[in-house]
């Protein structure tokens, strides 16, 4: 089935990392979360992207409404995410991240795109609006995609 026949929605939220764990451990845990979510999302036809800075995740999920809602429920009940703030839920006509089961922009990526100053410790994802998070991720992922193609 193509996206045209589906009830597509997009949700944007941010969450804080639960515990302050050593960077290396977090890196490992983080990779694991990312991998699992990529597998689940590919299976469920959910696409999206995730950014991370200074202990805060900003995430966009998009896809058929039932699948996105189920994914969101799974994340809500995951003890590693707490303090989830849902910024936006809206119907969309097309995906912004088709092809990305879960794109990722980390601190390094933000640093490159925003310049050293903006990506400094005080860049706070939790202060962004749903639109801000979506737009930032969208432009970064497109740039990334182009870079991959060029390479």
């Amino acid at each position, binding site marked *: 089935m193509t996206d045209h026949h589906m009830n597509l929605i997009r*949700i944007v939220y941010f969450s804080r990392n639960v515990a302050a764990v050593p960077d290396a451990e977090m890196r490992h845990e983080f990779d694991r979360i990312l991998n699992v979510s990529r597998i689940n999302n590919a299976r469920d036809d959910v696409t999206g992207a995730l950014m991370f800075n200074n202990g805060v995740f900003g995430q966009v999920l998009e896809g058929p409404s039932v699948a996105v809602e189920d994914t969101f429920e799974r994340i809500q009940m995951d003890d590693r995410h707490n303090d989830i703030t849902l910024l936006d839920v809206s119907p969309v006509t097309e995906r912004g991240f088709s092809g990305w089961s879960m794109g990722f922009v980390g601190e390094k990526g933000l640093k490159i795109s925003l310049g050293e100053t903006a990506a400094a410790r005080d860049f706070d994802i939790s202060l962004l609006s749903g639109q801000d998070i979506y737009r930032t991720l969208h432009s970064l992922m497109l740039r990334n995609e182009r870079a991959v193609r060029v390479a």
Partner: protein
Amino acid sequence: MKHLTLRSDRDGPNSGHPIPGSPQGACALSAPVALVVVDDSGTVTFANDVFRSIFGPDAPDRLRFGQSDSHHPPAALTNENASAPGAADRLADDAGAMHAVTWCRTGPDCWTGTVVLPGRKSPHETSMRHDALTGLGDRSSLSIAFQTLLDQRGGADIPVMAACVDLDRFKRVNDTLGHLAGDELLRKVSRRLVSSVRRSDVVIRMGGDEFTILLEGSTQAEVEDMAARIIDVLARPFVVMGHQVIIGASIGLAALLPAETDPSELMRRADVALYKSKNSGRGCFSWFEDGMFAALDERRLLEADLRKALLLDEFELAFQSQFDFHTNSITGFEALLRWKHRDRGIVSPADFIPIAEETGEILKIGAWVLRQACQTAMSWPDTLMIAVNVSPVQFEADGFVESVLTALALSGLAPCRLELELTETVLLSEDKIVIERMGALRAAGVKLSLDDFGTGYSSLNYLRKYPFTKVKIDQSFIRAPAADENAHRIVTAVAGLGIAMGMSVIAEGVETEDQLSRIRFQGCSAAQGYLFSRPIRDRDVMAYLQAAKASGFHPQDS
């Protein structure tokens, strides 16, 4: 992997099986229902004696089940070809006869199957039926689940507890997004509940937005942790049919008494504890305490009396004057509701208004107050205002604006003489409706005052955002001791801001000359309180006005 507390985590692997001849064993044998618990990997984690008697003593090992998940009950794998799944709703016994089995999702990764034997079905027992919407056990399965808990309880000292969970603001979801969304939300709530409890706990949907959790072998602290966790996870946002939905949960907790063998009293106690949670602002849990039933009975009596109070003409209004500093005159009165009960005497509004709001009786009472107040004001000089308190429940109800206009029309009172006093709780309702209703009232000429300012969030933004004509500073600020500088700074700030925005700023609860001179200095434009007048009866209003005029409108102790 076990369920229905057939065993607890600390027990050995076989302790779930009742000892034949023991009282528990006898109890399980007499149960007319065969019970089997299968986890999602297909492993049988418990079977009761009835099950063993139908399907054979080795049935738990012999029967093979396929994998299951939250949507698909386990299907029996046939003996001949273990790879071909059989139907999920039938099980073959030793002799090859098929028995209908009803599956019920009873935990995060397990299903409980029940088989009712023909001819052995007792009138009191039915099979463990599941709720079609959520897949949880339904109300009728409570007694079976409870009996299973008792059967499997290792000893009398292992506590059994019940938690009644009731969703807050669920009705609003049904009303605004429709029943389909309400149903979907209940499914999501069920899943969050099941993943918030231990595998040995049983979650049952009692109906509507009420759930019960039965727990065995938990300490009080563990039950409280679970309750706090449930309150936390149900307060997290849901996405339902493309909408963000925020609800909450209130919980009542009770423990089974040593001699109790019936769940009904336990449930009644958990329920009355739930009632306390709902009355303590919701989003919390409460344990049952002695005295709760007596308090509840008393409340029910008060509730019944309140229903009759209008008919019996037990309400009356008292009027307290409001004094304006600029005109140096009485500008109007606030109508205050009194309930004179034939036996109880005067019942405080603080005691009966919350009950009236909860039962909806406030709508009738509020309409009476509006009509009565307008009518009374018609007998006063036409420069005088009448201020009437409006409950948030009243304001939110359909037809509120119409009821105000009706009261005005019936009495013939000019709308500009009526002032409605709204507390900020009113402003916490859906903003669009609040603004629309306030706009309609202002357009009709009715004045609006913000009551009890300073007691809640008291955002100064309210003064800008909503079309209030007056702000009433709560008496706690007026009566604050002279040393409480912050309280007095707040009064000065609110007075300055209110007056700058063209509002009248009135101080409530002025009792002494000192307070009066202070609030005048702080910039308030009007005052109300015992210093000017206690609330008086309708028939004393004219005499009071004359006396006040004779004394040059100087405030006097009455």
